[in-house]
Every structure is written in C-alpha cells, then in structure tokens.
C-alpha cells in the first residue's frame, strides 16, 4: 500500500465497551470505509470475499486448519498460501486490520511505563521506592532481577563499585569490531581499548590520562586491563567503554589462541567482561550496556 498502512488490530476489537478499531479513518482505495479486525477466513466469509480465494489457496488453508470446523479461524498470519493476504490487499485493505494505537498497554506489567531503578544502581536509596518488578517467568525463561537487585543492595555492591559504567560505539568502528580491527587502515585509527573517566574520579584514584587501569565489575570477580581516557565528556561518577574490542581477557593477551592468520591487528579487553545480570522487566530484553564498576590504577 502506497504510503504505509494503519495500526494493526492486534489486541481484539473491543475493550471496556469501547471499540479498538479505527473510526472514520481508512486507507485510500479501501472498500471498507472504517476500522476492521485482522483478516481470517471467518471475516472473509462475512464480507463474501472468500469466493476470491483460488482452489489451491483453499486447499492449503484447509490443511492449516486441520479439521473442517476450524477453517474459519485460519488467519492472514497462519495462512501458508498467502491467499488471505492477497484477497485483503485486492480489496484495498490491510491484512492485519485497521485498528487504533494504544497508550495503555494493559497486558504488560506496567501498562504505562514508570521509573524503576536499575538492578545495579549507585542510588540504593531509590530502590525501596522504585524497585524492579518481582521475579517472574518471562516467555520461557526466569527473570530474577528483583532478587539480584535486593541482594546487591544488601551486600553493599554500590559501595565497592561506585561508578556507573556504560558502553557504546566509536565512529571508526563497526559492530563487535573484529572486521574493523582486522583492516590495517581502520585498525590504526583506534589502537587501544580504553575507559573514559571524569577528571575528578581519576584524580581521587591517582589515574593519569593514557595510563593503564584495572576495571572491575560487580559479578564473577570480573576484571579488565584498559587505558584511561580522562575526559569531561563523562560526568562525575560515570565511566564509558567502547564495545568493539576483544582478544584480551582479565588482563591477558590471548593472541596466541587465534588460529594462524586470523588474529586481528588490534586486540583489547571486551567491555562485556564487566557487564552484569539484567533483563528488561517487561520485554525480557537483555541489558548488557550498563552496570556498576570500580577503576584503579594498574
């Protein structure tokens, strides 16, 4: 459809007595001049559009249904023939329906997003008021964020690891950096793994710009040996590492472990070594880009 389609009618057609379908809004050229649900065989039959399906498409749809009484439930998203999508588009309609956008996600733990302190936070005073969500099974896996957060507070992790560490991208690098570091012209641009640290934090620790430091993480006695970049680009209490390096682990250069001829020109500690447990309490998305750390001169 030129110019894009409407919102998917993903969450049913009605809630609390109000329609979830679009009202007085439809695609140009649509034969249905209003909102409509996702297309199934049942919907096609009500519209009389099931006659547009070919015999081949119907045969596949019956096979997907398994038994004749379930044919009406076959949807555009399960129909392996693509016939339901074809017929919907033929009538100027979006196969996934024409619904409303929603701001209240009633089937998520927080229907409207609220602040929740990170599992590893330097502001432990905020954990009581803004704790993460209770431990739960998400999709097929457990998320024990609440227990980890509570344990971290009880064990005083934020005292031993007072600095926020986040990771990110260098403009010279691509992804994990293996390809970039294997290309001499690009590898020459950033030759060392480093951690950005505020001048105030560096001064407290006796760290000079360009010197080697040990970065330690809050779990598994994680440690990494990297160069210090003392800069006001990060605030006091915050550090930052690029995530493009690899080939060192815990201060040891592992170049001799690479198969012959495959070692990149530049190696360095991986930022992920320092990162800790954490999954988004709503989506289960992993959070490997921010945690707590401590830095000391090497």
């Amino acid at each position: 459809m030129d110019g894009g389609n409407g919102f998917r009618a993903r969450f049913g057609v009605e809630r609390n007595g109000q329609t979830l379908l679009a009202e007085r809004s439809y695609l140009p050229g649509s034969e249905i001049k209003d909102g409509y649900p996702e297309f199934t065989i049942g919907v096609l039959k009500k519209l009389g559009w099931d006659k547009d399906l070919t015999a081949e498409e119907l045969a596949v749809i019956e096979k997907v249904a398994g038994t004749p009484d379930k044919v009406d439930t076959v949807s555009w998203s399960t129909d392996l023939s693509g016939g339901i999508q074809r017929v919907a588009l033929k009538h100027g309609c979006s196969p996934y329906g024409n619904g409303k956008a929603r701001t209240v996600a009633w089937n998520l733990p927080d229907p409207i997003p609220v602040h929740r302190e990170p599992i590893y936070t330097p502001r432990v005073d905020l954990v009581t008021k803004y704790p993460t969500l209770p431990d739960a099974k998400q999709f097929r896996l457990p998320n024990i964020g609440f227990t980890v957060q509570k344990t971290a507070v009880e064990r005083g992790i934020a005292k031993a690891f007072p600095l926020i560490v986040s990771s990110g991208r260098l403009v010279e690098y691509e992804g994990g950096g293996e390809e970039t570091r294997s290309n001499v012209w690009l590898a020459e641009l950033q030759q060392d793994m480093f951690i950005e640290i505020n001048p105030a934090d560096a001064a407290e620790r006796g760290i000079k710009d360009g010197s080697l430091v040990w970065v330690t993480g809050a779990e598994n006695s994680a440690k990494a040996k990297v160069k210090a970049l003392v800069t006001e680009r990060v605030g006091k209490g915050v550090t930052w590492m690029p995530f493009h390096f690899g080939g060192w682990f815990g201060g040891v250069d592992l170049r001799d472990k690479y198969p012959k001829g495959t070692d990149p020109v530049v190696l360095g500690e991986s930022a992920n070594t320092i990162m800790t447990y954490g999954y988004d309490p709503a989506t289960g998305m992993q959070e490997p880009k921010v945690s707590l750390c401590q830095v000391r001169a090497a």
Partner: protein
Amino acid sequence: MARMKFLCDADRCIECNACVTACKNEHEVPWGINRRRVVTINDGKPGERSISMACMHCTDAPCQAVCPVNCFYTTADGVVLHSKDLCIGCGYCFYACPFGAPQYPRVGNFGSRGKMDKCTYCAGGPEADGSKAEYAKYGANRLAEGKLPLCAEMCSTKSLLAGDGDVVVQIYKERVAKRGYGSGAWGWKTAYGEAIES
C-alpha cells in the same frame, strides 16, 4: 588554470576519519605514516572542534624555501609536490611546515629518517602520470584522471572541500551566510596568505 586548494570547515567535521582512511586506501600508505589526520581541539568539552589536516599546498610554500636539495616544485595547478629521488630525509621541511604535514618512515636505528612522504593532492610526483613508478613512490594520480582528492570526495558532511580555490571559497561563503556563523576555515590564511572575507 585552476589554483587547487583545501578548505576544512571546522563547524562540519564530525571526526569520522573517513578522509584519513580513504587516503590510506587510495595510496597504500603504510601504518604510522599519516598524509592526512583529524585533529580534535577541546576534546570532550563544550566548543569541541575537529579539523582534518594535511599538506595545504601553500602559496610560497615554506617547505620549498628551506629544502637544501630543492626537491619541491609547484605544479601549474598550484599543487606542491616533491621528488623522492632528490629528498635526503633531512627533516628541515617538517620544522618549516606550519601544519606538520611531512612524514618520514623510520628506516633504521637511532631514529634515522627515510625519504619524506606527504599529501600529493592525489597528483602523484615527477614520474609519468599514472605510471607504476609514480604509484610506488607517491600513490595514485587522480588529478591526471580529472578527479579531485579522494579525502574531500569521501567527506560525508562535505566539511573538507577540495578544488579550485575561488570555487571552494564561494561554497564556504554561501554556507556561512546561510547558517549565520562560521568559526573559520582553519589554516587558510596561513597557507594562502589571504583571509576569506564574508
């Protein structure tokens, strides 16, 4: 005849180093030799600025003035080139250059210098245009093919401009007039002995 110049608009450079990489790739420049580099001033502070620097192909070039073996010459396009056959690696040009452009490969112990290498404005050297001998010593000769230096051609924000001085200045002036500010084309006055009046 055009007078070829470089102009780096410091308000546009994003320190991506694409110019540096393009140069290295085009001319097979070895590790440690930088015909072009990006310099960042006030790194990590408000007012941070980056500029891409290489040989600016100066008017009345200081390198040329101090060279004891007269290995430099200025082409009809205003490009300052040199002969690696004549160069003795003395390093005088490095001290004379206001931009730190001349580079020297380390050829032995005690920091002894090899023959000087610098930006050629993608215009090769004294050998025949496009010859293998020219490529081995100076890299590609794009200018002879009617192409501009690759660094400027590659620049994603068009911060680095290369071409006829009058045209380049015109583009820069229009830019400054339209956006209402310009921290200057750094190095322009030093290299070409004239300010850009806007």
